[in-house]
């Protein structure tokens, strides 16, 4: 019994002795020391000098408290030091992030400039190619028209002195306009070339071309459409004349125009045309207004679809376009002809 008691006393004494020894450093102090020795410590000290200095001060205080055997005070100081140390590290992280943000913003800005430049270059290139494509097609139309006019002249050889010369003159107008980039006017010129092979069409063709040119100068598409109609009618009369001797029907005349357009690479079948619109139909009241509306719509469509050409023809009641005032006398038809993408 006595021995047991002595052992218990000895254990208690040992325990008391252990309590009086140097205090164990708390976890918070270890963490603070690790933070103070981290690889970014120097950078954090530069970025957030005040917070870092506070962390160092608390670290010193914690060590002092530990040396004095006050583990609780050491923990308290370490906790405060840790917060300040983390604050400094967070400031460093934010500074680096801001650097990243600035770099990204700079790259973004440069790329936007690059995109603007490329977009502009691509647009210019597309325009160049589109003009080239149009140029080739119009040249083809001019050639086809010239061939058609020549064929007509051959059929009527000797009956219309000077007709061929007039046709060539109109072709020259077409070429000249083509050279000036007046694509639409060149189409008109080409069509007029066919029409103006007739001596009696000279005045109307000349007038129509002159007005079309003026409209182009003013970029007045609505007026241009009216001239297109006029020239188209002239073209029709030329075809009528050209096919008259061969006993061609009005439908044949339309086909003649379609043939020319097809030869130039336009859509081959009438059904493939973007639109075929009746413009007038026999003088009924209100018809002209409706016709004007349609012309205006066509003009607007042409603005949005630069790869389409609009031609108007006088179908005289017979044409291959179903549903367009069939059998009701004179009928003018506008064709919106899509230009093919490749020649």
């Amino acid at each position: 019994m006595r021995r047991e008691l002595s052992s218990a006393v000895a254990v208690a004494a040992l325990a008391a002795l252990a309590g009086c020894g140097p205090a164990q450093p708390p976890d918070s102090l270890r963490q603070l020391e690790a933070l103070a020795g981290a690889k970014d410590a120097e950078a954090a000290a530069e970025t957030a000098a005040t917070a870092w200095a506070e962390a160092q001060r608390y670290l010193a205080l914690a060590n002092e408290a530990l040396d004095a055997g006050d583990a609780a005070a050491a923990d308290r100081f370490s906790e405060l030091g840790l917060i300040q140390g983390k604050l400094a590290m967070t400031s460093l992280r934010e500074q680096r992030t801001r650097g990243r943000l600035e770099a990204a913003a700079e790259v973004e800005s440069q790329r936007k400039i690059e995109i603007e430049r490329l977009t502009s270059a691509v647009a210019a290139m597309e325009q160049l190619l589109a003009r080239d494509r149009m140029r080739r097609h119009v040249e083809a139309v001019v050639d086809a028209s010239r061939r058609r006019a020549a064929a007509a002249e051959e059929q009527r050889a000797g009956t219309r002195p000077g007709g061929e010369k007039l046709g060539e003159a109109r072709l020259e107008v077409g070429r000249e306009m083509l050279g000036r980039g007046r694509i639409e006017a060149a189409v008109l010129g080409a069509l007029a070339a066919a029409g103006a092979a007739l001596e009696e069409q000279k005045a109307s063709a000349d007038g129509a071309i002159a007005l079309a040119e003026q409209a182009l100068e003013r970029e007045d598409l609505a007026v241009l459409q009216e001239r297109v109609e006029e020239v188209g009618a002239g073209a029709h009369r030329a075809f009528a004349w050209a096919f008259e001797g061969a006993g061609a029907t009005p439908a044949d005349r339309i086909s003649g125009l379609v043939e020319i357009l097809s030869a130039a690479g336009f859509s081959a079948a009438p059904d493939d045309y973007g639109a075929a619109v009746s413009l007038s139909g026999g003088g009924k009241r209100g018809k002209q207004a409706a016709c004007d509306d349609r012309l205006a719509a066509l003009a607007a469509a042409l603005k949005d679809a630069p790869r389409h050409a609009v031609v108007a023809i006088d179908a005289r009641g017979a044409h291959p376009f179903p549903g367009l005032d069939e059998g009701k006398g004179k009928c003018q038809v506008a064709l919106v002809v899509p230009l093919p993408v490749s020649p």
Partner: protein
Amino acid sequence: MRTRIVATSAVLAIALTALAPAALAGPRARRVASALIRSESSLQEISAAEDASALGAELTLAQRWLDDARSALRDGRDKRAEMLAQRLDAQIALLRAMLSAAGAETRADAAERAALALADRISELETRYDALALEARGAQLTSAFPEKTEATLAP
């Protein structure tokens, strides 16, 4: 003015009654109680922030310290409550700094994503330009066509 002071004191008294009825009379308890009310309000504001999810354990720690400080104040351990309130104050500064850093990271990430998307667009435009240039060469265009590097081009 007097009415305002009376009203403020009344609010403070109610708060102190809730926090530390035993230490209501002590100036330290009064000071700590006020500090804890401010800290609680700050923590609510921080918790509701858009990037609060980035705060993680630090926010939990702050909330625990707030609870501990309240308990200490209720038990009359003013000194302990004051120590926790001080620590909480520093922790709130840390949380605010973390929120600011998280916001900056969100913006930086967005800017980097935007820059990447622009790089894709540049690549698309270059491909398109190269295809057009090939077509132009194939068509034997006589007119000089615009270079990729030209900033502005006449229509």
